[in-house]
């Protein structure tokens, strides 16, 4: 059955087929998960900025009043700002690292393939 399937398959030396393979190989494809990663990365940055802004606002709230109740509110707001910043920072770190590691892995695989090709080339060229 396997042999018959193999026989049914072409030889792969048809120019149109080769052209098709090359064109599919050159296609720029966007992985849907990458788009989601990018959105979460942006959300992380936004939360980081919002957190810092909340803390600054809380400082001015507390500074502009002598009312202990308002100062208590400002303290809570500042703490919430710190929490939002930490959450945003974590998201940013998580997804920027993922992007970096993806590139690093692709680079590593490319280097390894290039190295293998070099070794095979040298081995083939070496006198026997």
């Amino acid at each position: 059955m396997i042999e018959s399937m193999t026989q049914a398959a072409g030889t792969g030396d048809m120019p149109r087929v080769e052209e098709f393979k090359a064109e599919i190989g050159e296609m720029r494809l966007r992985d849907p998960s990458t788009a989601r990663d990018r959105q979460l990365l942006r959300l992380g940055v936004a939360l980081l900025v919002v957190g810092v802004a909340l803390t600054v606002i809380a400082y001015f709230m507390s500074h502009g009043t002598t009312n202990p109740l308002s100062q208590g509110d400002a303290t809570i707001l500042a703490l919430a700002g710190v929490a939002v910043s930490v959450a945003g920072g974590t998201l940013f770190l998580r997804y920027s690292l993922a992007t970096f590691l993806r590139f690093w892995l692709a680079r590593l695989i490319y280097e390894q393939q290039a190295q293998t090709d070099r070794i095979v080339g040298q081995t083939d060229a070496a006198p026997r």
Partner: protein
Amino acid sequence: MTLAAEATTTDRVSTPLLELRDIRAAYDGINVLRGVDLVVPEATVVAVLGPNGAGKTTTLKVAAGLHPASGGDILVAGRRVNGARPDELARRGLCLIPEGRGIFPNLTVRENLWMMSHCRRQLADIEELTYARFPRLRQRHTQLAGTLSGGEQQMLALARGLATDPAVLMLDELSMGLAPIVVEDLYQLVASVAKEGVSILVVEQFARIVMDVADWAAVMVQGRVTLTGRPRDLEDTLSSAYLGG
């Protein structure tokens, strides 16, 4: 052994031009494809057979990028293309001729062909090739496509598909609504196209029509490929596969 497993062995010879691995797809949360494995090697005609509602058309739509797969991998020329735009795939040579012909009924035959000149070929080349393959379309070239007979409309749909110079041609129910003699002629043409090196994935509800043309066949039932093999080898088991026996 499944078709996918066989393809792994086939890979050593050449990469299949189209491969579906454990494809799942749904319409509004209702699962239609439940793990479809299918391989279309180079210069091969693969027939997907099965009863109405088995998921054959959805399989083609997923392969062409017209319907999203909720799981699994779509590999074209060995590359995973899940999420690729259907027009990008079509421009590169993955051509789907849909059920119901996919022509412009209010345009003439010539204008329908003209619409395909955005791809690789000029209108003059398309016309030359089309009229050589379908002499009847030459006689009808000024006629509105909607006024052609069913067979002529299907010829026009095929001609439009072939005008894109496809590497993989997917045909959905070519025989639908046509007289048996017309269907026979069309499938002879499909066989001649396959001989030119085009890989063909053909979906048919009426299995016997494609038996002489296909090199390989897969039977789909309830969203899964349940049987694969040479068409002639499957002939005896088809009835029980269709009826779920």
